[in-house]
C-alpha cells in the first residue's frame, strides 16, 4: 500500500464515519438556541470603555476619549484604593451580597461581595453562576469564623447563582432579588446596575 492510498482511505473513512453518526446533529442548532435564550455574548472590560465613548466614536476625538476615560477610570480606582488603605472596611457579616458601589463607575463594572455563613465544619465553599459559566469560584474564610467571602467584578445585568458548601447546593440566598427553580432546585437571582440594588 502506498502512502497516498492512506490519504484517500483516511479521508473517505472519516467522512463515512461522520455521515453515519451525524443523526445526533439534526436539531443541534435548535437545542443550543433554546438553551442560550436571551443570553448575550459576554462583554469584555474594553468593550465597556468603548460603550462609554460610543457617542463620540467615528472621529479622532473618540480615540482621545477612550484614552481619557481609561485614565479617569485608573484615577478613580487609585483614589478609591488609597482611601481603602486609610480606612479599611470589613465585609458585611450575614448571608447575601453587598455591592461595593465605590468601584469605578465609568467602566460599569461593580465589585460584588459574596458572603456565606457556613457551618464551622465546612471545608470548601464556592459560588457558581452564569457570570462564571457555572464553574466554581472559591470563597475563603481566613479567620475561621464560618463567614466565607469572595469578591467578583460584575457588569450590570441579571445574574443567576448559587453556592456549594462542601459540594451541597445552597441556592436560596435570603438577600437575593428573587429565587427561581431550575433543574429541580432553587437558584438565587440578583439584578446588578439599572433596576437593581447596585444601580
Amino acid at each position, binding site marked *: 500500500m502506498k502512502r497516498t492510498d492512506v*490519504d484517500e482511505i483516511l479521508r473517505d473513512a472519516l467522512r463515512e464515519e461522520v455521515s*453515519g453518526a451525524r443523526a445526533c446533529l439534526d436539531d*443541534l442548532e435548535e437545542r443550543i*438556541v433554546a*438553551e442560550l435564550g436571551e443570553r448575550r455574548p459576554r462583554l469584555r472590560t474594553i468593550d465597556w470603555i468603548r460603550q462609554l465613548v460610543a457617542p463620540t466614536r467615528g472621529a479622532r476625538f473618540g480615540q482621545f476619549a477612550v484614552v481619557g476615560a481609561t485614565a479617569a477610570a485608573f484615577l478613580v480606582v487609585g483614589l478609591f484604593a488609597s482611601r481603602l488603605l486609610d480606612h479599611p472596611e470589613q465585609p458585611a457579616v450575614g448571608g447575601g451580597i453587598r455591592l461595593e458601589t465605590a468601584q469605578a463607575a465609568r467602566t460599569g463594572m461593580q465589585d460584588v461581595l459574596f458572603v456565606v455563613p457556613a457551618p464551622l465544619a465546612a471545608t470548601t465553599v464556592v459560588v457558581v453562576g452564569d457570570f462564571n459559566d457555572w464553574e466554581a469560584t472559591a470563597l475563603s474564610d481566613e479567620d475561621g469564623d464560618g463567614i466565607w467571602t469572595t469578591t467578583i467584578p460584575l457588569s450590570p445585568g441579571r445574574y443567576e447563582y448559587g453556592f456549594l458548601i462542601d459540594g451541597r447546593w445552597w441556592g436560596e440566598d435570603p438577600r437575593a432579588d428573587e429565587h427561581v427553580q431550575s433543574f429541580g432546585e432553587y437558584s438565587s437571582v440578583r439584578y446588578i446596575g439599572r433596576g437593581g440594588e447596585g444601580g
Partner: protein
Amino acid sequence: MYRVQDEVSLLRASLEGETEAWGEIISRYKDAVFGLCLGFLRNRADAEDITHDAFVRAYVNLRRYHLDKRFSTWIFTIAANLCRNRLRYRKNHPVAEMPLHLSGGMDPARSLELEERHDRVRAALGQLPYAYRAPLVLRFYNDLAYREISEILAIPEGTVKTRIHRGKAMLKDLMENDEERDQA
C-alpha cells in the same frame, strides 16, 4: 431567514445577541466541528457533548473573536482544546470502548475490500497517540492547511508536517499488520 447572509453579518448579529444568527453559524459548522471531535476522541457520545459545548462557549466568548480572522480556525481551536481536556479526563475516568456504528450503511455497489480498509484505517487511527491523530484529522477530514493546523494545535508548522508524515507511516504499518494478522 439568515440563509442568504454572509458569515461576517451572521457573526455581527450574534454579537448583538441574535441567537437565531448563531443558530445559522452552528448549521454551517456543526459537521466540521463534530467530525473533528469524533476524529480526536474516537467516541460518539463524547464527540456530541464537546460539539455542543464548543458552540455554547464560542457564543458566550464571541467578543474574544476578531472578525478579521478566520472563524473556522477559532471554533476549531475551541473544539480541539475541549477535546484535549476530555481526553485528559478520560484517562482517569475511562468508559467502555464502544465501536462506532454507522447507521447509514455502505453503498452495496462498493467492494467489501474497501469497507474493510475503512474499518482498518479507523481502528488504526484510534491506536495512534493524540499528537499524531489530531493533525491527521485536521488535514484529512477538515482539509486544513499546515499553517492553520499549527495555529489550532499551537505547535510549529514544521512539527505539523513531521507529525502528518510520521502519522501516515504509522497508520500504514498498523493497517498492514492488521491485514497480515487476519490472513494468518
